């Protein structure tokens, strides 16, 4: 990248592949300050960048004290790293090989349940981690291979449905596995018990051992942060090497054009199985870490919702990019799963959901709208629009604007200056939080969705004009209901939105390479 930019070809030349010839042009990073910074960044060798981020992450626990709040922050970091591990594994199947593996969550669960069964009081087995983890990882990888086998001679989509079903089945078995029997015939077959308890059913398996190696036990929060970090580093490095290897190139060839890859005598079926198997192994590793971290395995940690969370991470970061997978995992798990918590105190901590939400809207507007004049006009429009609506509603109905922020009357005055601004910008109807009074919220939500969909159909100043009421409505639905359910359905709703928007607007995600479709 340090050389002078390649001279641009005048026009189509005979006998030259335009796409290849212009590759330098596409790699061009652009001008301006951002471009120069990126050019500098490109000069730094990749391993150095990698090492920088690893060291930065390793310093995080040292900055935290042993207070309860700091342990909570450390836990957020550890969970983000576990998700990063999961995203890396899913990236092998989805990003490298282009297979839609929807049973991925089951391998995560198998890792957790496998570890929980082999080192807890459940069956009185207390094997050490160095023995259990390789065993579980190997079993899970084998299962991945087995499961992909029936869909091996089929076109892509069947794999999706078989694996999706497999994930569901895993959840059913984990939930129902506390009364396993031979068709209810145990007594007749001479067994002592009428049924066996294998998975603990909906209650899961509790009191799982911490990781232990030769008598040493990892029990502190910091230890788990470092264990997970080491796992992420090893998997990241391993996958980077795998991606550059023969197999990695074959996976990418498979993703680009399966038929052409097969014609080049690549073992297509085996490559597919391998991709699913490697993903399954990484997921199982993450599962064992999660079980030891939570000291338990519970079925609801391994359901379809978690699968969608991991998918959103990989897709947002950019399928096929390992750094993207990690970035997506950290963004989604820190910002969406933790950052969007409602602003009600839990313990000593207050959630920052409201501020994260408005900051995100502002950030998106600033990042996408050019030039500054237009941005200023839109922001001004949003402010004026809100104040106008507030004034009109206040003048017409008594209860129209006496709604509350947060969850109850006692927090009415809270929220600081920004809270005051929001109360005077939005028109929050009174009694919003009473059960059953969802009418205004539902109308606003449907209106918001309709507005956003209309925005995709129009261009120019009409779209700019539509942004104003859309932002106002977004604020309205957020304050009237979404912020309360932010740790539940809201974040899942937003994950669904991420999947759709990324696919429609930027299929390569944040760090991925755009796919070139050759017709």
């Amino acid at each position, binding site marked *: 990248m340090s050389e002078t930019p390649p001279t641009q070809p005048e026009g189509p030349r005979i006998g030259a592949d335009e796409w290849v010839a212009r590759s330098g042009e596409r790699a061009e990073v652009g001008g301006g300050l951002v471009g120069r910074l990126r050019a500098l960044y490109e000069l730094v060798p990749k391993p150095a960048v990698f090492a920088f981020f690893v060291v930065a992450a390793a310093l995080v626990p040292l900055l935290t004290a042993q207070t309860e709040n700091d342990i909570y922050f450390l836990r957020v970091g550890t969970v983000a790293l576990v998700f990063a591990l999961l995203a890396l594994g899913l990236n092998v199947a989805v990003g490298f090989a282009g297979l839609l593996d929807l049973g991925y969550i089951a391998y995560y669960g198998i890792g957790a349940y496998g570890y929980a069964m082999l080192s807890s009081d459940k069956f009185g087995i207390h094997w050490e981690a160095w023995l259990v983890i390789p065993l579980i990882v190997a079993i899970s990888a084998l299962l991945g291979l087995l499961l992909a086998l029936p869909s091996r001679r089929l076109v892509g*989509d069947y794999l999706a*449905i078989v694996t999706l079903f497999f994930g569901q089945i895993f959840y059913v078995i984990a939930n129902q596995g506390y009364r396993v029997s031979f068709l209810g015939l145990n007594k007749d077959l001479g067994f002592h018990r009428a049924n066996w308890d294998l998975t603990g059913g909906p209650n899961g398996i509790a009191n799982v051992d911490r990781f232990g190696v030769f008598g040493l036990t990892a029990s502190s929060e910091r230890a788990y942060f470092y264990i997970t970090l080491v796992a992420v580093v090893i998997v990241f490095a391993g996958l980077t090497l795998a991606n550059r290897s023969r197999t990695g190139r074959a996976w990418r060839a498979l993703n680009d054009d399966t038929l052409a890859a097969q014609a080049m005598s690549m073992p297509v079926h085996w490559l597919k199985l391998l991709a699913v198997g490697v993903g399954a192994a990484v997921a199982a590793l993450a599962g064992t870490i999660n079980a030891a971290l939570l000291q338990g395995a519970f079925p609801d940690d391994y359901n379809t919702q978690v699968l969608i969370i991991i998918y959103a991470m990989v897709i947002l970061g950019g399928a096929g990019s390992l750094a993207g997978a990690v970035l997506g995992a950290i963004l989604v798990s820190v910002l969406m799963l933790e950052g969007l918590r409602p602003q009600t105190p839990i313990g000593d901590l207050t959630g920052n959901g409201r501020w994260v939400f408005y900051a995100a809207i502002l950030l998106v507007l600033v990042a996408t709208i050019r030039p500054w004049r237009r941005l200023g006009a839109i922001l001004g429009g949003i402010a004026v629009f809100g104040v106008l609506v507030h004034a009109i509603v206040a003048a017409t109905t008594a209860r129209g604007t006496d709604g509350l922020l947060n969850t109850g009357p006692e927090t009415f005055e809270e929220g600081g200056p920004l809270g005051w601004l929001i109360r005077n910008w939005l028109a929050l109807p009174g009694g919003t939080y009473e059960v059953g009074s969802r009418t205004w919220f539902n109308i606003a939500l449907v209106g918001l969705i309709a507005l956003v969909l209309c925005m995709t159909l129009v261009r120019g100043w009409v779209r700019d004009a539509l942004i104003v009421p859309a932002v106002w409505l977004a604020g309205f639905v957020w304050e009237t*209901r979404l912020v309360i359910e932010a740790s539940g359905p809201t974040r899942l709703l937003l994950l669904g939105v991420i999947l759709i928007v990324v696919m429609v607007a930027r299929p390569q995600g944040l760090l991925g390479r755009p796919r070139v479709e050759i017709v």
Partner: protein
Amino acid sequence: MKALQLVGYFQDFQLTWGYFFDQLVAGLTLGSLYGLIAIGYSMVYGILKLLNFAHGEVFMIGSYIGFFVLTWLGGAADPSLPIAVVIALMFVAAMLGAGLLGVAIERFAYRPLREKRAGRIAPLISALGVSFFLQQLAVICFGSAPKQYDSFSFDAGALFTSVSIGPFRIQYMQLFVIVTTICLMVALTIFIARTQVGRAMRATSFDLEAASMMGIDVDRVIVVTFLIGSALAGAAGVMNGLIFQNVDAYVGFQVGLIAFTAAVVGGIGSIPGAMLGGLAIGLGRSFSIGYVSSSYQDVIVFCILIAFLLLRPSGIFGTPAPQKV
């Protein structure tokens, strides 16, 4: 029968023919429902080669629409109109609403990807996103508690009384579902076989590119496909609510998965295949509930799917498609 009794697993009542026929009728009812949903999957897959994960959610929304119409008309216990009119209105509203929803999903989530030629995995992920979005939207807007259809209160339970036809004992509700499904099927078959649009649909599903070269407005055909498929899913949603008495936000995912299995078993892309696959899965589920265990019915459906994928991947009615390059 003697041998089974020796094992002692089955209860005495499970060994009567009456019980068997009850399971059969229940399976046929369930199967009609799955068949109706499976048709939507099959039609869309036949034309776009897209696994429309959001279809189950369309079914769920249709079921909710039926519920709201019912509530608006006074509820099952005290309807403000004759029962037949109420049910007819529920069906019309749900089919219309679900159909429009399907068209909107196609327009905003799939068409942009098609225009960009985004490959095969991108629409699948988008479909997954739509499915999840609609599901959580229903949780937020309608609450996570199931809504009660309370169809048992229609005319003091008249719809759930049984009549005997030969050896079969069948409830009016089941009869209604089966007959309605047959009517919809006949209408759909005639539409596909006889009308101009139906012919365009067949041509498009045969070869999308060639069809567009022959002057068929492919986008319009796709819109019609989504409209019909989603309307059928909406009808199935109302039926589901009437039979099982309630609807919640998660019903779509589960039923959608089973219906897709039905479409695969019947031969994806084939409409009679989808219906037959639905019946097969419905019967399998019903008998597994009746004779094995209610907890593991999904496992049994999964086994049927795997068996078909191994033994006859093109399904009952499907023809193995030679891959052209």
